[in-house]
């Protein structure tokens, strides 16, 4: 029987909480050490989560990120200043998982790439959307020859109004990373042009609505609508209503990854069941990289694409 891979965790954001709430052994992995984010704001939560799953708590994130006994580190922090953790872990040769948004500037991507090259580490920086049950299934369907040629992608993210009048990040910063990563996962071609229409339409100080039209060099056209437009009378669960539709030459796939399920409309209509939280799928990918079962890791290259797209839209 193969041994489970020991992993360290830095941070106690929403993915960390989902991981700790997983009601079964992690697939091929066990959490050995857990540290709070560098800024320390989630120290109490990290302590509680470590205790909950029987991991050793360490107040020293650098010690966990550089621990030579850990082949992999998950950076599950909501702290925007997580670049230092990535640098530390990558430069010590680890497989590092940092869900988007991990770093947000091209300068930081260069820095992460340099750290990876120094330490021969491997970075995985996916969106949660890509690792939802629906997202994973949809990506497989599109890769399948039955889907045909991808013509267009339509993605809509609708979120509650929130606290009107209070400053908060624009909707692009909140939700764009997830959608962009998924979009780039189905469209390998470079972006030809981007048009963005944005506005503060629902009483926000910051931009609460963004409608984007993106054309890729392979002729795929994507339309992305993100808006904090939902009144309180429309019930939603985090992260909001996300709908993605992929239209191919033979099939169309429509998914609501955080709501109902995935439906494939071709000769038949197929609905796929739920599986685990996205973070469990991410852990599985980390283990596959550590054990050499993953045949290809886009890593920094994928991160560079998504950061470039976000900057182009900005």
């Amino acid at each position, binding site marked *: 029987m193969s041994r489970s891979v020991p992993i360290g965790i830095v941070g106690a954001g929403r993915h960390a909480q989902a991981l700790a709430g997983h009601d079964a052994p992690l697939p091929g992995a066990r959490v050995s050490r857990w540290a709070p984010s560098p800024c320390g704001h989630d120290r109490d939560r990290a302590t509680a989560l470590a205790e909950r799953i029987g991991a050793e708590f360490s107040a020293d994130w650098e010690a966990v990120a550089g621990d030579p006994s850990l082949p992999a580190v998950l950076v599950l922090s909501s702290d925007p200043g997580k670049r230092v953790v990535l640098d530390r872990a990558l430069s010590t040769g680890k497989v590092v998982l940092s869900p988007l948004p991990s770093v947000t500037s091209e300068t930081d991507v260069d820095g992460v790439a340099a750290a990876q090259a120094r330490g021969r580490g491997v970075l995985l920086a996916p969106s949660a959307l890509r690792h939802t049950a629906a997202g994973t299934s949809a990506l497989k369907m599109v890769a399948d020859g039955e889907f045909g040629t991808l013509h267009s992608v339509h993605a809509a993210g609708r979120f509650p109004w929130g606290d009107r009048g209070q400053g908060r990040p624009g909707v692009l910063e909140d939700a764009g990373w997830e959608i962009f990563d998924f979009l780039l996962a189905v469209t390998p071609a470079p972006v030809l042009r981007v*048009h963005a229409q944005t506005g503060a339409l629902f009483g926000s100080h910051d931009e609460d609505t963004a409608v984007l039209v993106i054309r890729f060099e392979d002729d795929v056209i994507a339309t992305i609508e993100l808006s904090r437009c939902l009144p309180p009378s429309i019930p939603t669960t985090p992260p909001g209503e996300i709908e993605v539709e992929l239209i191919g030459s033979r099939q169309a796939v429509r998914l609501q990854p955080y709501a109902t399920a995935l439906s494939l409309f071709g000769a038949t209509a197929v609905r796929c069941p739920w599986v685990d939280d996205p973070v469990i799928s991410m852990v599985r990918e980390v283990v596959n990289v550590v054990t050499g079962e993953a045949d290809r890791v886009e890593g920094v290259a994928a991160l560079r694409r998504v950061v470039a797209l976000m900057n182009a839209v900005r």
Partner: protein
Amino acid sequence: MQPVRVGLIGCGSIARAAHLPAMSSLSDRVTLVATADPSEPAARAAAAPWEAAAYTDGHELIRRRDIDMVMIATPEVAHREWTEAAAAAGKHVLCEKPMAPTLVDADAMITACREAGVRLMIGHSRRFTRRYIEIRRAVDRGDIGAVRLVRENERRPRARRGAPGGYYSAAHWTGDPRVSVGAALTNGIHEMDLLRWFAGSEPISVFAEHKVTVEGNIGVPDFLTCTVQFASGTIGSSEISNCLPPGYPAFHQFEIYGTRGAVRAKDHDLVGVTRYRDEGADFPESDRILLHNPTAYVREWVAFLEAVQGDGPLPMPPEEARAALRLALAAVESARTGRTAHLDARGAA
């Protein structure tokens, strides 16, 4: 009151699917006197239930003195010719959407009918569809506050494999680049009209992308996506796709978000009947109810007849159809150039 005597020019799919059934249900108010179509069998088939005359040349129909109004159900490239001819003969005109392929044609149609003293209405059927009427009422009552975001998707399944003459195929006029502008007009004119109608403001810019997706299409853009900025600050967004698999259940997804609430009419939440067979699932109510809504065409006819017979206002003045056309053509320009097209907020060309 005597029934209005109708001449039908163009006896293709929209006449068969929408206008002839609507006229049949209004047989106490209209009489089909004559039909015309370059295809003689099509003209005869449309005329037969009414024992009407059938022509292959619409001018012969228009020369008849016993016709009060002309229903034009031809491709848009011919709308101006038939409208001008009908107006010159003193006949009212109900014309299928889109109004025309160019604003020059649209203006000529308006001028011809105004100078002849006859009524002209363009058949934007969705303005007469119950769901949009209810949404309009909700917006007018202030139920959702100020409209800030209007978004809609048009999804039309392609013809089943082996079936002839689907939209944008080489065998259908919508796929002929000599007479068809493509999705922006054939389907998209509905979207442009609804965006503008519900935004309650004039567009000031539009950005669009389009492409060919339907198998066998020889070059007419059948896919279009666009985002529209209105003078009020409202944003509009619409995407039109015509290549969905035959099993796809939905045709239109429409949502309006306002400062106090929202209205949503998403077809895939409204599919009432799903049938499961060996070949897979299908949605027998979708096509009849959600796309060719029979009552919408009846309402459209009633509205026009009341304006003609009662001399009242038209619920859909031709200037409104022109405004939708103006936005659609701006979207085409944007898609062709890859640049944002700007429009005069006062509604000029």
